């Protein structure tokens, strides 16, 4: 069983880096079957990343208010077909890979952080977005745990530790190889 944790975004575009930062923080890389990838790929190029995986958790930014909210989205509620393939996003990439007869993840969770600005090159991340990173990371861990990917031992990194680390990016980077929460702490996510 393989899980792809895919952080999407552009690290030069302020708030848009949030998906990358969450993936960096999640710290499930050392678990068997889990691959954590940070990527700036777009459109149908996402096929290359998601193809062949059993499960996937995608972390991305979402323009909206209030800034810094963390949402769990159901990919199936996104449009399944863009008006033309040229406007493809993740739902189309998945659909196309599936249509093309290749193996796509059977479970896909999307964790989104609402952002203000993703068009300014070299911009700093909004503090509210930065502050949402620990919460988003812990949601990713919870989903992974509910799907059976977390270790069975006691939680090595309780959520409280994240809150303490706050918005300090240096501190969050250090967390990258922390262990995941115990599945016992994670309510099963209904499918």
């Amino acid at each position, binding site marked *: 069983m393989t899980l792809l944790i895919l952080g999407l975004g552009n690290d030069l575009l302020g708030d848009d880096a949030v998906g990358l930062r969450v993936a960096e923080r999640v710290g499930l890389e050392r678990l068997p079957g889990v691959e954590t990838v940070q990527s700036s790929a777009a459109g149908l190029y996402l096929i290359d990343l998601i193809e062949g995986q059993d499960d996937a958790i995608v972390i991305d*930014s*979402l323009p909206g208010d209030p800034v810094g909210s963390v949402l769990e989205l159901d990919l199936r509620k*996104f449009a399944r077909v863009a*008006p033309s393939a*040229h406007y493809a*996003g993740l739902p189309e990439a998945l659909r196309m890979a599936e249509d*093309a*007869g290749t193996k796509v993840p059977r479970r896909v969770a999307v964790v989104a952080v609402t952002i203000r600005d993703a068009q300014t*090159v070299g911009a700093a991340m909004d503090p509210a977005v930065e502050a949402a990173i620990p919460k988003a990371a812990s949601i990713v861990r919870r989903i992974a745990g509910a799907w059976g990917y977390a270790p069975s031992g006691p939680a090595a990194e309780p959520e409280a530790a994240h809150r303490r680390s706050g918005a300090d990016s240096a501190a969050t980077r250090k967390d990258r190889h922390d262990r995941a929460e115990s599945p016992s702490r994670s309510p099963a996510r209904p499918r």
Partner: protein
Amino acid sequence: MSRQVVIDPITRLEGHGRIAIFLDDKGEVQRAYFQIPELRGFEKFLVGRRAEDAPQITSRICGVCPTAHHMAATKALDDLYHVEPTETAKKLREMLYSIFMLEDHALHLFFLGGPDFVVGPTAPKAERNVLGVIQKAGLEVGKRVIAMRKELRGLIQELGGRVIHPVFGLPGGVAKPLSEEARQRFEEVARRGLDFAVFCEGLFEEVVLKNKAYVDAIVSDAYTHRTYYAGLVDAQGRENFYDGQIRVVDPSGKEFAKFPARDYLKHLEEHVEPWTYVKFLYLKAKGWHGFTDGPESGIYSVAPLARLNAASGVATPRAQDLYRRYFETFGGRPVHHTLANHWARVIEIVYAAERFLELASDPAVANPDIRRMPTATPTEGIAAVEAPRGILIHHYTSDERGILTSANLLVATQHNAARIAMSVDKAARATIHGGVVDDGMLNQVEMAFRAYDPCHACATHSLPGSAPLKVQIFGPSGELIRTIVRGSGT
């Protein structure tokens, strides 16, 4: 009553254009505009940073063609530092670049442009996708395309370190040698890549070229403009993706200019329109005369159609045969039909695959001399590559420490912007009449720009990712009468 129809894909993933169509009292098209919301600021962001970081920074401009920006920046650094890369480095770079062109063109052929052609431009929307392609071409096609691209991208990753932001090019060379063991593996993949390219060629021929309706669409006036064409050519005038001079041919196919990338400012100028941020490039010697084609207009075009028009041949044997047949079919060079871009792309798939195999079979790519260290003081660097979507020029100046003092990046879509604007306008006029705008018509308008495979510096990824096309209809005084959303996101 005049009204406005806006096709507004709000995605920042791929596509990212917007079409505004103005209708007159009778519901005929007055004018259609193609707008590109540009991501600006990269050039400013580069100033004050180390020149050697430019290949990494600029590869973040676009989530679609990072390899093209990486390579253009790397070559501009050679020029900035006045260093000639070693032969091994040049070969390795061109090999990486050929792999990239092969996999990128394949993606477009099957997933982006393919559905229009293989399934048909007016087919129901539900069928106009890769599934439709597969129904026509066989179930194994999709799997094969995905598997081949995955294998090719694996090689790019092996050479470039990371697929998305390659760490490969350095001034004077590349970062990592290729072992003989790896070369042999690359050669194996290249053989499969060539088989795959031949398969693409056969499929296009079988499904598209043998169907008179499609060929009629390609040559129809709605998708035809008689402009200038520009592309990189080697010393023999043959098409080249990685290096060469920029050759411009006039609408009758005669050479109009040939110049190194270094001289681009002498030949190209920018025109600004009030309705878009895009700077329209045109030929300085002919001048800007509005959105009009013909020999007196300075509008020119880049990308596959233009590259084949600008070149006097292709350097590999199978692609050269296809090149000859392509021009025979259309009655000579140049070809002015926008939709012929798709066929030209197939020819380039074969060329990229053949060139990849040539380079991977050359034991010299595994030589250890991958870099010549720069010793001169950096000053100014200008270079061009052919991105999948056309000529890409990077231009930098730096201080003596190599800190950038200016940057100018001319992307493919800017070269093509004027012709794309004309194509969209013409296609809208040809398809929309009496105020009736349906899905098939809008798709035919979109086809006009999809053929160019335009890329709009869309480096961000915010959800939903999929783009609703918004069609807004405005009354004479600008009031919104109706909004149609096609393929809504959330």
